[in-house]
Structures are given as structure tokens and as C-alpha cells.
């Protein structure tokens, strides 16, 4: 695929000083603030439409509903910024949940082992994705599509096509539904903690810098002496860790590992990333945007539900929101050019 480079052929007047970098900073934030504005508008709209909407129990319900998609979306933001894609996060998450279930329920291993086992499964899948992309040079779409189906199959095989219930496992449910901070479900706490971790990774570490560099111009990054293959493997592995965490959280929230679940989550996560202003062409994106994107989706769904809009129509609305988000993004870019 050809890289987008933004060298427009337009010449600038002689001696014109390049605009202050604050300008571009603001412009980069624009999609985010648009998304943020949308979120606020939705909140106002639904709170006017329904008095229940702003109740703490509803808000914490929205946050809880955001947790799984949000965590998945954080990891996938990294991959999308490299101009890649990860379709395996939905069913991958399910496989992680099932592995945790087998470790804790069938094998009766300690809680920590089950949790780490689930996360490690995610990391391994991410590593394999990264390896296929970097070493075998498979297009990310294909590598992760294959992994999506493999994970789906394995989840069914390992679980014996039956849900695994955690009812006998002490403290597992509390991972998502307990409240270390009173009133705030742990799943939401985990959402924020993983968000902060992803934010730091993307904006303050070498991994994040190379994520942007690869998405911006992989060839140039490579000949600058950066081992892009190694870093891509690492990036996909990190995304896999987020998938693993999401798997544990969803299992704890449902108090069971549901092997049939998972398909569709990847698209919702990718939608959140895109609504949040991350470019599918790579090189551009932010974790804060992704969080806002994930919130927009769950606020929409929750609000529509409270207004008793049919589920079928909820999907239509979310689809339209994605179109609008991508459209404003392309408008912005056109204005830039």
C-alpha cells in the first residue's frame, strides 16, 4: 500500500515562516475535541430525554459496559497507528477467557495463575500475529483474520463448546464487579489503569515513538537504523496483552467464560478507535481519543436503550456515527491540504 505523505506540491511564499507548531498541535486535537464535543452533546441530549440517564447507577453501568471494548480498543490503537489492523482481538479475548476458565475451574489452580494464564494467552496470540506480519510479511488484515478464526475454533475446542462457570472460584467475580474504590466497579478502574498505561506507552516511550514512526513511513524508519520488524512484533504482543486483560475482565463480569461470544467485539473496538480520531492510514492517533470513542459508543447504546429504541436501530445509529466521524476526519484533512 502506498504511504500517505503529506508533501503537497504547493510551494510556500519565500521567507514565510512555518506556522507555530501549536497550530498543528491544535489541529491534531481537533478530531479529539470534535469527538469530545459529540460526547458532551450526547450526554446532554440523553439526560434531557430521560431523567434516569444521569443517575450514578446508570453512569457506572455505562462505564462498566465501556470497560471491555475500551481495553480492547487501547491495544488496537497501537496496531492501527502502525497502519496495521488487528481483527483477532474479539475471538482472541474469548479464548483468553476460556483459558482462564480451564485453569481456574477445571484445573483448580490459584487465582493469580488463572489471570496471568489468560493474559499470557493474549500475549502469545499477539506475538504470533506480529511474527507473521514482520517475518512472513503477511498483510496484517490476513494474519489477524486467520488468527481470529483460529482463536474462535480453539475457544470452542478447549471449552468443549460449553460455557465455563466460575461460581466456585473465590474472588474471581470481584476482579470486575468488586469495588476497591467504593462505588466504582473494578472493571472501570482497570479500564482507566490500562488507559493510562497505553497513554504512557504511546506518548512517552520508545515503543510509542516507533509505533508512530512505522505508521508514518515504515521504509524510512527502517533505513534510519530502527529494527522495525522487532518493534512490530512487540507492538502486536502488547496489543495481545490488552486482549488478554479484556478476556479476564469479561469473564469476571459475566462470572463465566462464554466460548460463543467474541465475534463483533473487534469491529466495535476498531470503531471506537476510528471515532476517536486515529487514522487507519497510520501515523496519527491517541489513547484519549480512543477512550472518548469507546464512551461515545456505549453512551449511544445505553441512551437509545433507555429511550426504548429497538436493538436493530441502535446498530444503525452506531453505523451512522462511524460514518460521520470518518467524514469529519477526512474533511479536516482536506482542509489541511
Amino acid at each position, binding site marked *: 500500500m502506498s504511504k500517505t505523505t503529506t508533501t*503537497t506540491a*504547493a*510551494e510556500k*511564499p*519565500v521567507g514565510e515562516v512555518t506556522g507555530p507548531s501549536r497550530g498543528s498541535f491544535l489541529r491534531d486535537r481537533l478530531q479529539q475535541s470534535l469527538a469530545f464535543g459529540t460526547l458532551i452533546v450526547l450526554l446532554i441530549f440523553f439526560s434531557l430525554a430521560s431523567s434516569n440517564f444521569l443517575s450514578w447507577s446508570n453512569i457506572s453501568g455505562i462505564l462498566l459496559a465501556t470497560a471491555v471494548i475500551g481495553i480492547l480498543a487501547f491495544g488496537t490503537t497501537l496496531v492501527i497507528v502502525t497502519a496495521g489492523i488487528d481483527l483477532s482481538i474479539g475471538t482472541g479475548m474469548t479464548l483468553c477467557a476460556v483459558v482462564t476458565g480451564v485453569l481456574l475451574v477445571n484445573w483448580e489452580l490459584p487465582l493469580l495463575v488463572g489471570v496471568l494464564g489468560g493474559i499470557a494467552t493474549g500475549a502469545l496470540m499477539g506475538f504470533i500475529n506480529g511474527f507473521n506480519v514482520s517475518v512472513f510479511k503477511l498483510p496484517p488484515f490476513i494474519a489477524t483474520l486467520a488468527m481470529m478464526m483460529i482463536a474462535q475454533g480453539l475457544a470452542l475446542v478447549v471449552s468443549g463448546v460449553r460455557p465455563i462457570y466460575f461460581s466456585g472460584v473465590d474472588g474471581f467475580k470481584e476482579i470486575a464487579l468488586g469495588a476497591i474504590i467504593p462505588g466504582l466497579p473494578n472493571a472501570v478502574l482497570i479500564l482507566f489503569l490500562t488507559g493510562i498505561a497505553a497513554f504512557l506507552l504511546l506518548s*512517552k516511550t520508545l515503543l510509542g515513538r516507533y509505533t508512530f514512526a512505522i*505508521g508514518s513511513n515504515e521504509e524510512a524508519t*527502517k533505513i*534510519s*537504523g530502527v529494527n522495525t520488524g522487532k518493534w512490530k512484533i512487540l507492538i502486536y504482543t502488547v496489543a495481545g496483552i490488552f486482549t488478554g486483560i479484556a478476556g479476564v475482565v469479561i469473564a469476571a463480569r459475566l462470572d463465566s467464560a462464554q466460548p460463543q461470544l467474541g465475534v463483533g467485539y473487534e469491529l466495535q473496538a476498531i470503531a471506537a478507535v476510528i471515532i476517536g480520531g486515529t487514522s487507519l492510514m497510520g501515523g496519527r492517533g491517541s489513547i484519549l481519543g480512543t477512550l472518548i470513542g469507546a464512551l461515545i459508543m456505549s453512551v449511544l447504546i445505553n441512551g437509545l436503550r433507555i429511550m426504548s429504541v429497538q436493538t436493530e436501530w441502535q446498530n444503525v445509529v452506531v453505523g451512522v456515527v462511524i460514518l460521520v466521524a470518518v467524514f469529519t476526519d477526512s474533511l479536516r484533512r482536506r482542509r489541511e491540504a
Partner: protein
Amino acid sequence: MNAPLLKVEGVSKSFPGVKALDDVHFDVSRGEVLALVGENGAGKSSLMKILSGIYVKDAGTIYLEGEPVEITGPRHAQDLGIIIVHQEMNLMPHLTVAQNIFIGREPRVLGFLDERRLNRDTAVLLARLGISEFRPTDLVENLTVAKQQMVEIAKALSFDAKVVIMDEPTSALTQTETDTLFRLISELKASGIGIIYISHRMEELSRIADRITVLRDGKYIGTRERTAVTQHEIIKMMVGREINENARPATMRADNVDDVVLRVEGLSTKKLLRDVSFELRRGEILGFSGLMGAGRTELARAIIGADRTTAGKIFVNGVETTISQPAHAVAKGIGYLSEDRKQLGLLLDRDVNTNILLSSLGRYANFLGFMKTGPGKGTSRKYVESLRIKTPSIFATTKNLSGGNQQKVVIAKWLARDCDILIFDEPTRGIDVGAKEEIYRLLNELVERGKSIIMISSELPEVLRLSHRIIVMANGRITGELTSNEAEQEKIMDYATRISQ
């Protein structure tokens, strides 16, 4: 004297279907500028990519300070002190200047990036190099091509270099920026660094080269002391035949003078253009001269509908026409050959044939939309031959052609489209002397066949040689118009430096 700084012996390299380098040798000493010249596809960039660890050589030895070295990758070359400024831009547009310059060498504290130090180090570097056109925190995508090139150069000079390789560094630079670069080069020389300098601009060689090495078809032809050789001799070594350099255009046939094919009236854009009006006549080459940034590319883009205009009218063959996107322009018979070919002109992953036929595909489809392959291939072959595009076949991937040959493919594409009005933006940038002559000949042939050409060029000799009339722009306005008889370098420069009115 001790061993040369860098010495290359018997280096060969083959790609499928091409022997890019065949037993090549050369050396460069401390504090010396070695110019490496040769036609498009002669193997210059391949040789430099071997030195910088991007390609692996098939045979030969590289000596650094007398010791044989096996260069294993870009990182290794950097560590050895061999630094390259690539022919193609190799920057990450979404990152800042500082982030680009120090990519792979980011300062860190406790595992986290130290952005403050990164920007400080970059500011120090830019100050040392005397570059004030951009700041460490500017995003590279917001810089002009010329400034991006300066970022590349600053990046190369930020290393602790022993050998600096520059592959056509000036092809996108303005005169002042070129002067800045040459000043930097003399500083590098003074500090004992060896420089390998690749360029198609012959006049530059006499300014900075100490010795000149010539390659042709991947083979070593010879090395000369610059003071002991004339430009003419070098060109002859490069192309292996005599070429006639200074032919002026046949003056336009008088009967065409009133036949206006394109009239632009009062064209303005938000950014730069102010009230631009001119006429283009049938069978004419209209040269557009001016400094970089004068607005010539903007004018072309406004005419073809790539950028929005705020005022003005365009008449094609006397009929007022609204052109709101490039497809309309093509439909009206106006083709634009963009200055930035890599980004805007080519499908690099597709073959030469596809690229040449891209804008004229409709002509090679039957009524059901299936492609007729035969006639298309004939057309492609014709242009590959007449433009001397060096490629193993018309089905070779365009990405694998040398820089100059890629350029020729874009030219072939527009020639194949057969537009009545062609706008060429810097048509010979990065193209070797022999092929330039070929392109000049083609342009003349086109106008003789009744086509009309707008030629934007920063190379004055080229404008002077080809144009029937010359329009000079400065700061988004037309500041002067000259006929080919009255045009001379000084007059053009005088108009070009007039700021408005």
C-alpha cells in the same frame, strides 16, 4: 600518505534482470569531495545503498581507514560513521523535526523519552548548522519539500560521521538553500570528513568537487581531477557519445500567434495567487520562471482544479470553463505533470506498463470495459525506447527503477495521454543530461504537432532554451513577461526578485 578514508574495490550487484554494478572501484580521502556522476540507472544510488547497509553486495571489498569491513545493516553503517542523505525523501511526516532527526537515538530517562532534551539537542544542532527555517517542534508534514530536504541533511550531519554520502541533495533546494548546503559541505571538508556527492547538475560539480568519478551502465569509467577536466569531457564519459547542448528552439510558426488555447483571467487563491492573467497559444512553449515559492506550482494546481480558487476565469479554446477537479482538466485536454512525482505521480508497486497507460486506459478498453493489451504494450514500448527509460522490461515494478527513470515514466504517462495542453512542473529534475536532451526534443516535437506547453522550471538555462515566451512570477503575482529574443538570465532574476506590484 596513509590509506584513503574509504575505498571500494571490485563491487558488483545484480538485481533480477539487471546488473546494476559490475566490478566498480573508487576511493575518497579525508577532507575531500568526490563527485559521483552517471546517467539515470548507472548504479550510483545502488552503490551508495551498499555503503549504507541497505543492499548487500554480491562481490567486492570495502575498506574503511584501510581495514576491510562487512557492512551488515543501516545501523552498522551509522555506527561505522558512514552516513547517507537519500535521493528519495525518507522522513516520517507525522513526526516532528526533532523526532525525525534523532529517530533510533532517542534520549531517555528511566526508560521514558526525554522530549525536552531531544528538542534542546536539535535546537543546538540546527543553530550549529545555521538553519533557522524551521524549529525542532515543527511537524515535518507541514514543511515544504525543500525544508524537508534540509531536515534530511541536518539528520545526516547530526551523526558522528566519517563519510557523508549525498544522493542528489540539491534537486529540491532553492539557490539560497543550496548555498547553505555548500557552506556546510566546506565546513565538513575542513573537519576532515570525506564526502561523496551525487548530482546531475554539472555546474555544481565545478563549485564543490575535488575529483569526479564516472559510472556508466554499472561499470566504472574513470576518475578525473576536477581541475584537469572540462564539463564537456565528463558528459562524454557519462553518456559515451557526443551530445549537442545548446540548440535553441525553432521559433514559433507565425500563423499560430492568435490561436489562444488557454486564457486565464484574474486567478486568485486564498493562500498565494493574486490576480494572475495570461494566455497560452497553440504550438507554444510558455516558460514560467521564478524563485521557489513564487506560486508557479500553485498556479498549475489552481488551473487543473486541484486547489480552490477565490476569483478568476479560465477559458479553454475561447470557451469559459469551470474546472473543479483534475479529472475535469484531463477531460478538457489539460494534463499536469506534478513536481512531486513520487507522491502524486506514480503507482510504485505496479509495473511500468500500467503506469504509462494509467491516464489513457479508456482508450485501450473495448466496449465492455475489458482491456485490450496489445496496443497498450506497443505504446509503452515506444515511450520506454524514445525516453530511454532504463528498465529490464515494461513489466518491471516501477519501484525498482532508478530515481531518474521513475521520473521518465511519469513523463511517458502524460505523453501517452495525448493532451492538447500540457503543464510540466520541473520536468527534468533529477534527470541526466542525455535524457534531458531527449525530453527537450520531445517537447519541441509536441508543440510542432500543435500541442501547447506550460513549462515551470527553476533551471534558467532550460527555460531560456526552450520557451517561446517567458512569464516570471514572484510572490503569487506575475511580475514580468519576456519574449525569447529579449530574455536573458539577469532580466529574469530581476523580475523574479520583485516583491509584488
